[in-house]
């Protein structure tokens, strides 16, 4: 996978020094110290600690430390073994055989076996279990337990995202058998195979984990992981300053304007790398105004994405012309973003029959004014500001925009799921595999499904299916490049930007290395030298 990495130059030098130091110490037989705790601050409270039901980022982050999948992504985003030490994929792509690691134990001492994999699969495809991840697993015809350490998965048809779907955390059968996964106590008292074991969860306050000394990849150096919930960006930042938390994600403003002082340079390391997601404006394609391609293209010309990136992200992000991040192999670099051109937008709107007849500055067609509402979720300043810029720029071409900011849970359940919107400003976090069947396939428009804009293009449908059936990287690249080109032409979304991830971490934590996968991939190798340890019990 071609992925590039972009750090702030200052950090690069710090980083080089660290690498150099590491080299010298390694020669001397250096071993990092155990101990200390890391306090991570974030605005979101996890919803559940059952991996197959964790669809928000907070739940995902914590589940990732407690559980393991059969496979995982390494620092360069290649799939490598995790609970599986190896696997075979049959010639026709219909069968994957996993060979599991031996001697792995659940944190309560029970051995991990193939039966746990089978149990997890059954949970994923059980219609009563509320999981967002069933799609990939419904492609499985049969899952066979060959022996305690061998599992064979048979697919109904060749399914290329199949292997990567097994990054899903595996759950212990002996603790969950017969339990209702939607309501089980396990969701707040999880037991996994991972590097950290669960200790406590105080609602609205914190989740605490302690290191698993028997972890199969070795005991993590940092003894405790504390996830503090502080639902406000400004407070979170003050806590970071005061030493109450060690790691947070900065907002672009904080990264650019509030962390330049000597105090921050001396006490913190800042990181910057492309996040795996993009922000977009999705149109309700059932609406007569947005059904017209010329209108959607006009809006694309009327909005200057560079302006949004400079203004909202303060330059900490990039333009994206399609549903992948620009670093992905699936991203078609030949698709060029149109130039900001309000004049062209006006021409296109005129062609589509929109004219300002009464001179109030807003276009009309068949007696209806071009006025629509953008909805977005509360608590995200960047999205609010983006909406305001769009509002301003569309006003200049004769379209009136209203903005409605809605609390997250009713935003999803009342507006997105029920398709009660004109246009929605939202972001997708992407999986590593470029398959986007759930987002664009024409039938995925039922309540709660992801094609809520109602996009339908038979050619894209065909390509999406083809992309899932194809294993050859070259062939898949060709398919996804084609999808990218069609989507940019059709403009079901106004693709806006890919924001950068901006973590900041106390300097006492060593061993952090930025890679295409970000920084979290080697968390168990992070450490704090004895002399600098802060939390000593």
């Amino acid at each position, binding site marked *: 996978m071609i992925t590039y990495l972009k750090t702030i130059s200052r950090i690069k030098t710090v980083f080089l020094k660290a690498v150099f130091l590491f080299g010298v110490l390694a020669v001397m037989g250096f071993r990092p110290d155990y101990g200390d705790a890391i306090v991570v601050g974030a605005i979101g409270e996890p919803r559940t600690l059952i991996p197959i039901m964790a669809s928000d980022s907070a739940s995902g982050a914590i589940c990732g430390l407690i559980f393991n999948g059969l496979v995982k992504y390494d620092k360069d985003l290649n799939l490598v073994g995790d609970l599986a030490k190896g696997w075979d994929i049959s010639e026709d792509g219909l069968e994957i055989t996993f060979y599991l690691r031996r001697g792995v134990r659940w944190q309560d001492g029970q051995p991990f076996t193939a039966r746990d994999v089978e149990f997890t699969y059954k949970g994923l495809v059980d219609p009563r279990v509320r999981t967002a991840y069933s799609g990939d697993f419904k492609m499985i015809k049969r899952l066979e337990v060959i022996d305690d350490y061998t599992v064979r998965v048979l697919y109904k048809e060749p399914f290329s995202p199949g292997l990567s779907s097994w990054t899903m955390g595996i759950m212990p059968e002996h603790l969950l058998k017969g339990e209702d996964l939607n309501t089980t106590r396990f969701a707040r008292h999880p037991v996994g195979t991972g590097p950290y074991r669960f200790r406590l969860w105080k609602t609205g306050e914190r989740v605490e984990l302690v290191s698993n000394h028997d972890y199969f990849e070795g005991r993590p150096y940092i003894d405790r992981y504390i996830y503090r919930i502080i639902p406000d960006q400004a407070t979170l930042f003050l806590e970071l300053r005061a030493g109450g938390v060690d790691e947070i994600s900065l907002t672009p403003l*904080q990264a650019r304007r*509030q962390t330049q002082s000597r105090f921050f340079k001396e006490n913190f390391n800042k990181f910057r790398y492309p996040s795996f997601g993009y922000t977009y404006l999705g149109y309700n394609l059932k609406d007569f105004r947005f059904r017209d391609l010329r209108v959607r293209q006009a809006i694309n010309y009327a909005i200057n994405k560079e302006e949004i990136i400079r203004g909202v992200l303060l330059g900490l992000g990039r333009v994206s012309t399609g549903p992948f991040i620009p670093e992905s192999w699936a991203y078609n670099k030949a698709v060029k973003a149109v130039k900001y051109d309000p004049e062209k937008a006006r021409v296109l709107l005129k062609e589509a029959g929109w004219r300002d007849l009464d001179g109030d500055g807003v276009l009309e067609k068949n007696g209806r004014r071009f006025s629509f509402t953008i909805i977005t979720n509360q608590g995200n300043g960047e999205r*609010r500001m983006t909406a*305001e810029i769009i509002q301003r720029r569309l006003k200049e071409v004769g379209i009136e925009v209203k903005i409605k900011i809605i609390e997250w849970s009713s935003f999803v359940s009342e507006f997105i799921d029920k398709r009660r919107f004109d246009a929605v400003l939202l972001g997708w976090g992407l999986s590593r595999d470029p398959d986007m069947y759930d987002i664009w396939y024409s039938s995925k428009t039922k309540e709660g499904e992801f094609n809520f804009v109602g996009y339908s293009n038979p050619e894209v449908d065909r390509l999406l299916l083809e992309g899932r059936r194809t294993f050859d990287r070259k062939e898949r690249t060709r398919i996804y490049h084609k999808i990218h080109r069609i989507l940019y032409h059709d403009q079901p979304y106004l693709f806006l930007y890919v924001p950068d991830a901006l973590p900041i971490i106390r300097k006492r934590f060593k061993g952090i290395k930025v890679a295409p996968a970000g920084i979290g991939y080697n968390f168990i190798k992070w450490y704090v030298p004895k002399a600098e340890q802060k939390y000593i019990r």
Partner: protein
Amino acid sequence: MNKMMASGVLIVAFFAIIAVLAPFIAPYDPGQIDIGNILTGPSKVHILGTDSLGRDLFSRMVYGARISLLVGLIAVAIAGIIGITLGSLAGYYGGWMDIVIMRFVDIMLCFPTFFLILAVIALLEPSIVNIMAIIGFTSWMGVARLIRAEILTLKERDFIYAERAMGAGDFRIITRHLIPNAMAPVLVNLTLAVAAAILIESSLSFLGIGVQPPTPSWGNILSEGKSVMGAAWWMMLFPGTAIFITVLGYNLLGEGIREKLLK
């Protein structure tokens, strides 16, 4: 005019003039985005600095005054109309009508107003009109009680009997004689209610469920100011001060009127 009332009038008039003359006072279009000038501090070009989209804070504050005062006055007008109508009906007719209306007042008073407003906003959508209406519909109870109490005593007075003897109907007696004579304490109450309404609007906008962008209101400027607190002190200081002084102004005015009329 006493000192309190004078300073109240001064402050209220000052902001009222700003609100009315907003287009002439504001040096810039309050929605003019300028990506090259994000969060710049107070200077000669932007006397109160700029916000996170580079818009001129002074111009936004000036237009924000319109919203805050408008919400305050209209909400109180609604509260006044409801309160006076129900209060005088209850006071004048007494009997079952009094019981029904006053129990309804008691019920309304049981809800913590702010949470009631939050709940209603969650059902409707946040917009200026809705906010004015909701604040109005949830703050009339004090007025109703005051006017009822006044009318209970007034309606036994001789001039009312005289009026009735001359053949005046209930409607005429209530609107021409009872309400004008009962207005003094209500006026004080309504003035103070304007201050409260401005505060509620600001609080709602601060929580992001009040006046929606890009319309500036002091509350939503303040809310944005909170998220950029460490980088732009002017974004919190100026709207905060404006809210504080305006609310103080209406309180002084109300207290001043009370002192003048009721003593």
